[in-house]
């Protein structure tokens, strides 16, 4: 299994900069997810790694070997296209077998590999069917089977689940995760769905407008988002409040989030303060800041509630399992769960 | 969506404009039309010739002049040969004749005469100020011998000529002069032409004789109307004869000095202009554009002669008056007008039919057309010529032509034995004439 390195990769299409100076390192055997909104350049990066696109500048390395100009077919990648690209005029068996036949493998080996890939994806009964006889989920499995049957050094998947319905999606992503664990193929997985990303990823690269905003484990991007964009994109949508840094903490108007060691040069800085709904509690916590508010709306999600609370004119959302008693409530926030971003640069300000 | 009011208003405006335009147009016409004169005499002129639109337009132009000169309004009606024959026959039978003048090929007029559909033009006397060419007079005389009347007045002619690039005169074989060629003397023979072609080939290395042997070419006319007549005296009678074998021998030899692309040429104007060939035989209409483009390059000569004579096809168009036709005096005036040298010269320049009166040629101004006219005049005036007409075979014409072309293909192109080919084809040729109950020409 290989380690993949991107070094200052950029791609322009005319005046559009699809990928802007991206450097990444994907470890051997890792399941690496590219996450970002539609149009941020995820597919383009994947295609550059696959060799379907040549970067305008920058290099791509597989295990330290420069593959930037290597033809796609020689790179040893398996790819699952968003549209699946299952060849319509061939039976499932032939779809999986064709890449192997091209490699001139012995017939017995081809047959063994096709059957083993089919078994892994549970499509053994579909081998004699034509693609038009398959459902979306089945096609997706065929595409995955075809990609793994070639025993690739790198497995690339471009939003493979986006065409499936919600239930199937949850089931299929678990299967992909299991498969990847089993096969230990270095895998790059593209999605715009942060839940899917977190469910699958060893590490996530969060992208925006052609740039990588942050690379890290699920915990890292969740707990320590490096900028406002990442904070906003990961997890359920964050509460943002404007504030100012003082020598005792961050003043958010209706409250002061206390910090003990505020560097002098930060005092007076305008900041955006982010608090995740799940980090707002309705019962007291150790070292929490107390806020008073009025319940405006309660969304019942069965297992939990989203409560909209008016705190001195600012609306905050809290996610909790407790049903609030009465209109007037007290809220508790822990300073360590508060994310502070520079209003202008939107970068995280480390403060404790 | 347009509102109804706007639509209504638009329509109203359009109608108003149309009405105003119509009124104005009518007014302009009323003021500018020619004043009414004494009642004009109208006559109908039916013709199998000059039917293509451009030629018709020229005729209308010509007849307008005639109208200005004489006040006779002539309607020119192009007809198919069969249609005219039927029309005349029906009209004469019914005693209500509308056509005053008929124009057609001499063979067509022959048919009308044979049915007794024509007036004797002898009573109108001679037309002054013009001398009809030898061959034209002979055709009229031939009819007179058969039907005892003057059936037609020669109108115009077309024939086949030899066009020579002037450079070729530098390679004349010994015993042949330019004068011989141009005047068509005793020494301008098919053998002389062969010697000339051979001489050119030996000196230049090029095969510079051109024959129209392509798909639409008139090669078959060369065969039955020229070579056969010059060598055997007949077009078909002596198809398979020692003289014919001699003729095919000559042609085979001549082919060796003919441009190989001849089998793709249907007209010789282009190869002459491009100087692919220096000596070419073809119909006047199919070389005229070369002469119009570069008259100074070329000389037009009568065709060579063979052992029996100078066989050639003359396509002669004549003018005849149907029996009992109305306004015969006026029709005769039109005949006079159409055979006038100046009119004849213009016909030659505009539609490529050549004059039948010798005074017309000097009146031609286009130097290329004039050159052809001179060549045609020389040919039609030559004493040793044997003029023949294309036999009128109707539906069998295609089979007749095909026999000569097949003989050419097998003898000249494929090199089959002359005697064998001719013997094989002869019965087919005879069968055509037997079927039509016609003497073999």
């Amino acid at each position, binding site marked *: 299994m290989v380690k993949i390195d991107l070094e200052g990769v950029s791609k322009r299409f005319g005046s559009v900069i699809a990928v802007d100076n991206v450097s990444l390192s994907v470890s051997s055997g890792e399941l690496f997810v590219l996450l970002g909104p539609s149009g941020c350049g995820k597919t383009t990066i994947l295609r550059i790694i696959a060799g379907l696109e040549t970067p305008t500048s920058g290099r791509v390395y597989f295990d330290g070997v420069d593959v930037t100009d290597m033809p796609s077919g020689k790179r040893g990648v398996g790819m699952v*296209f968003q549209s699946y690209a299952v060849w319509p005029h061939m039976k499932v068996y032939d779809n999986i077998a064709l890449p192997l036949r091209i490699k001139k493998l012995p017939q017995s080996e081809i047959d063994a590999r096709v059957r083993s890939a089919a078994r892994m994806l549970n499509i053994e009964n579909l081998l004699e069917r034509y693609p*038009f006889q398959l459902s979306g989920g089945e096609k997706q499995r065929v595409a995955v089977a075809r990609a793994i049957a070639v025993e690739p050094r790198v497995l690339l998947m471009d939003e493979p689940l986006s065409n499936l319905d919600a239930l199937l999606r949850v089931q299929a992503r678990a299967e992909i995760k299991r498969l990847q664990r089993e096969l230990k193929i270095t895998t790059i997985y593209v999605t715009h769905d942060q839940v899917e990303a977190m469910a699958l990823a060893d590490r996530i690269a969060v992208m925006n407008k052609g740039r990588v905003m942050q690379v890290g484990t699920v915990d890292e991007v969740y707990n320590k988002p490096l900028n406002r964009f990442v904070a906003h994109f990961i997890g359920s949508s964050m509460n943002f409040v404007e504030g100012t840094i003082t020598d005792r903490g961050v003043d958010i108007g209706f409250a002061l989030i206390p910090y003990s060691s505020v560097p002098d040069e930060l005092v007076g800085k305008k900041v955006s303060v982010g608090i995740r709904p799940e980090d707002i509690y309705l019962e007291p916590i150790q070292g929490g800041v107390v806020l008073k508010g009025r319940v405006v709306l309660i969304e019942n999600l069965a297992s939990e509630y989203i409560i909209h609370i008016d705190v001195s004119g600012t609306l905050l959302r809290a996610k909790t399992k407790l049903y609030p008693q009465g209109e007037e409530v007290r809220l508790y926030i822990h300073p360590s769960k508060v994310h502070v971003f520079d209003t202008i640069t939107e970068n995280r300000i480390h403060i404790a | 969506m347009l509102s109804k009011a706007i639509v209504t208003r638009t329509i109203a405006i359009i109608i108003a404009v149309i009405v105003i335009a119509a009124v104005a147009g009518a007014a302009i016409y009323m003021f500018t039309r020619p004043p009414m004169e004494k009642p004009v005499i109208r006559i109908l002129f039916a013709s199998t010739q000059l039917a293509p639109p451009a030629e018709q337009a020229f005729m209308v132009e010509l007849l307008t002049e005639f109208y200005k000169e004489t006040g006779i309004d002539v309607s020119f009606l192009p007809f198919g040969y069969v249609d005219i024959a039927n029309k005349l026959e029906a009209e004469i039978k019914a005693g209500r004749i509308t056509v005053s003048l008929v124009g057609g090929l001499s063979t067509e007029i022959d048919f009308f005469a044979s049915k007794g559909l024509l007036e004797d033009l002898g009573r109108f006397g001679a037309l002054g100020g013009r001398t009809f060419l030898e061959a034209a007079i002979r055709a009229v005389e031939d009819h007179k011998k058969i039907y005892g009347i003057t059936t037609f007045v020669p109108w115009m002619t077309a024939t086949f000529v030899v066009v020579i690039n002037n450079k070729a005169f530098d390679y004349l074989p010994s015993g042949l002069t330019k004068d011989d060629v141009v005047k068509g003397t005793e020494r301008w023979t098919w053998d002389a032409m062969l010697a000339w072609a051979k001489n050119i080939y030996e000196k230049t290395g090029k095969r510079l004789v051109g024959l129209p042997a392509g798909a639409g070419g008139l090669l078959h006319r060369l065969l039955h109307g020229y070579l056969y007549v010059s060598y055997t005296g007949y077009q078909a009678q002596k198809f398979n004869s020692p003289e014919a074998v001699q003729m095919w021998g000559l042609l085979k030899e001549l082919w060796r000095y003919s441009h190989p692309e001849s089998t793709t040429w249907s007209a010789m104007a282009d190869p002459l202009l491009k100087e692919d060939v220096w000596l070419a035989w073809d119909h006047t209409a199919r070389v005229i554009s070369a002469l119009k483009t570069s008259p100074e390059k070329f000389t037009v000569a009568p065709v060579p002669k063979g052992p029996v004579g100078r066989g050639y096809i003359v396509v002669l168009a004549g003018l005849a008056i149907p029996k009992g036709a109305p306004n015969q005096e006026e029709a005769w005036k039109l005949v006079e007008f159409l055979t006038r040298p100046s009119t004849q010269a213009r016909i030659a320049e505009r539609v490529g039919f050549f004059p039948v009166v010798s005074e017309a040629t000097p009146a031609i101004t286009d130097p290329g057309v004039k050159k052809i006219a001179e060549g045609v005049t020389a040919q039609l005036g030559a004493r040793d010529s044997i003029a023949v007409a294309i036999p009128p075979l109707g539906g069998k014409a295609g089979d007749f032509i095909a026999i000569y072309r097949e003989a050419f293909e097998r003898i000249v192109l494929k090199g089959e034995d002359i005697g064998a080919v001719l013997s094989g084809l002869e019965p087919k040729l005879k069968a055509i004439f037997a079927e039509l109950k016609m003497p073999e020409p």
Partner: protein
Amino acid sequence: MPSPLRKHIPYILVAPSLAYLAFFISYPIFYTFSLALFGNPSPMVEVMTSPRLGEVALYTTLIIATVIPAQIVIAIFASLFFLNRFRGRELVLYLFIAPLAINEVAAALIWYTMLSSSGFLNKLLINTGVISAPIYFFGYEFIDRTLLAIFLTEVWRATPIVFIIIYAGMQMISRDYLEAADVFGLNLWQKLRYIILPLIKPYIQTALIIRTLFALQVVGPIFILAGEYVRVLATEVVYWYSMRLNPGVASAWALLIGLVTLLLGGLYIKLLRPSAGAT
């Protein structure tokens, strides 16, 4: 409740088309059949025993069997070429299909003028000293080279129509199918063989049928380039109809064209049945 009139309405509605078919399609076909088959001797028998039949079969086969495959192959490669986006692609594309706008007779004249002994090509070669005497393409003595000229003219003139059909077919192929092939290591030839050709089969079939239909009807260019000495089915029809004034024999040859077309059409449909999944 359906009235009796209502029951007849559908028949009344199709009656005009039936009349049309009967008058403009069936009548001419049956007329041709009767012209071709009946007579004494039957024109069809005359044709089948004619010494020209062998020659006609040879030249017709030679032209059809070289021109059409060449056109399909060229059209396929041209389509592959034009699928790439490059600078000036549109211009090159227009130039490539320009001959479509040229009438077949005009096209033949262009090639005739170019290849004739005093034509452009020979002049160029002589002036540049490549050859000293002209190369002949035309004339009975050079009929083999004339066939080459016919081949070139037909390919030049009619390949664009094949190209347009096949190019349309290739553009219908989703780019993903080809990229998947790239990723899985298929080279250009393998892509063509395993992906592209199977997917454009219906288009190839259409192109073959259309081209065969029209190639069997080419007359003007052959008369221009070869005179009457390269005889094919279509030139025989024209020859017998307008030069020999024999509609019977002409109809018999025309009937043969129809038969050959039908036969080849059936063959194409049988051989190029699209694979089950390809749509």
